[in-house]
């Protein structure tokens, strides 16, 4: 205690008082007829992207992304939503910017830095909205897990939004200005950059 030095302990001393407490847990295999408590399959989600494409420069900007995600029983809504937000940001980054560029002549990586291996910055992310599916039909399926699934969809959602905006598909990620302009110029034939 700050006000009473005689009742004060250093961090090290405080930790020593905890002692060595072993963690002992006993469990049993679940009844096959009951729904599982913990599984690794059966998550689902859908994502939507609202983008702007500058057709004179080929630059794509994210206005808004919405992710609706199911992962069975959500133990903590706030951290689950945060996980999906992170997935959206990673997804925007790989959809628009991230690219390892190998030199076709020497084979070296030309952009081993954050200058030309671009990551999305705060201004590149737009508005993110996450909705976790909870309640009847979801909770009783038990804890499934969240992890990577929401990072799969942004590439498709953003590509679809860009195709919807400009009328042609850009068949490569990331959707860089050169590729978007090439797709516009070729009017839907596959861009070759």
């Amino acid at each position, binding site marked *: 205690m700050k006000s009473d030095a005689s009742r004060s302990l250093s961090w090290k001393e405080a930790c020593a008082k905890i002692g060595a407490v072993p963690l002992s847990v006993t469990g049993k295999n679940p009844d096959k007829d009951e729904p599982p408590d913990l599984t690794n399959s059966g998550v689902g989600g859908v994502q939507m992207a609202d983008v702007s494409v*500058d057709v*004179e*420069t*080929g*630059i794509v*900007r994210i206005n808004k992304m919405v992710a609706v995600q199911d992962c069975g029983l959500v133990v903590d809504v706030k951290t689950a939503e945060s996980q999906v937000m992170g997935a959206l940001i990673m997804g925007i980054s790989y959809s*628009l*910017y991230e690219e390892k*560029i190998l*030199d*076709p*002549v*020497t084979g*070296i990586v*030309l*952009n081993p830095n954050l*200058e*030309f291996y*671009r990551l*999305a*910055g*705060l*201004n*590149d992310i737009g508005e993110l909205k996450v909705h976790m599916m909870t309640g009847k039909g979801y909770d009783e399926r038990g804890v499934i897990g969240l992890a990577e699934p929401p990072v799969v969809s942004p590439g498709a959602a953003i590509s679809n939004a860009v195709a919807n905006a400009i009328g042609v598909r850009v068949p490569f990620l990331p959707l*860089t*200005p*050169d590729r978007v*302009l*090439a797709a516009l110029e070729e009017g839907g034939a596959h861009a070759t*950059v």
Partner: protein
Amino acid sequence: MQQFEYATPTKKEQIAVLLGDNGSVLAGGTDLLALMKDDIVTPNRLVNIKQVDGLRGISYQSSTGLRIGALTTLAELSESTKDLSAYPVLTEAAREAASPQIRNLATVGGNMCQRPRDWYFRNGMGLLAMKDGKSLLREGDNRYAAILGNDGTALFVSPSTIAPVLIALGAKIRLYSAKASGSGVRELALEKFFVIPTQEGQREHDLKPDEIVSEIIVPPPTKNLKASSYEVRQRAAFDWPLAHAAVALEMDGNTVKSARVVLGHVAPVPWVSDEAAAALVGKPVNNDTAMAAANAAVANAKPLSRNKYKVTLTKAAVKRAVLNAAAGRAGGVS
């Protein structure tokens, strides 16, 4: 990093001797130290000029124009002060030139002397990046390389976004060396300071080994000057431009009396486009004339295998800078 000596002179007369044959001037250090860590440059001595008198400050007089000391930071240049109020295009360009942390350190003199961002150069393959008699940029990945002024072996692009704006405003650069005769000052039009090297070992600036940049002089703005700078950047967060245009239009009513159009990130030097300027003179500014200037700016472009898109981006930059200038908007970013 190679070991080096360190000197901190307080008088500009001391600099030339301290630099010797293989010294480097240290100001903000935002570019130099990164180049040293990567062993791209290996000076045997750094001469820190930040304690030298007379290299700082911004001052304006209506008769002589603006004086920008070489040690002025980009942050200082981006502040909307009374001295800078006649040049909003300059403050806008400085504000967009780097992230806040960099702007607080980087100097105007250093911005003029910064080295290209070309990835072959930054990977230690030389400024011209020649291998077995062939240009790595011509044969390899040239998506960010030059589309103008690329007839020779220099295919990198000039990195400054301040220089094109200053050149459009008619700026001069003053260089100083105690070893030079007379006052030691050499003054030249800023566009003459940037040169396209033809051999490895040559620099992209006309700065002698014993010289420093001491100041930039911008003439007072002409009557009815409308200037604007436009950067096409892939990211909204800080990013190097893919194309950049700075325009300064002297207007006579609705008609362009004279024009300067300077392109950035498209050539080994800030590229003065007389063709684009000529397309505007004697005409009103509208969508058609802005587009005509944009087309004229890239009429002589020679894109490489992977950078044809930069021709389109350059056109967008010129068109938007011209239209923004006429509309009284000093800056713009895609």
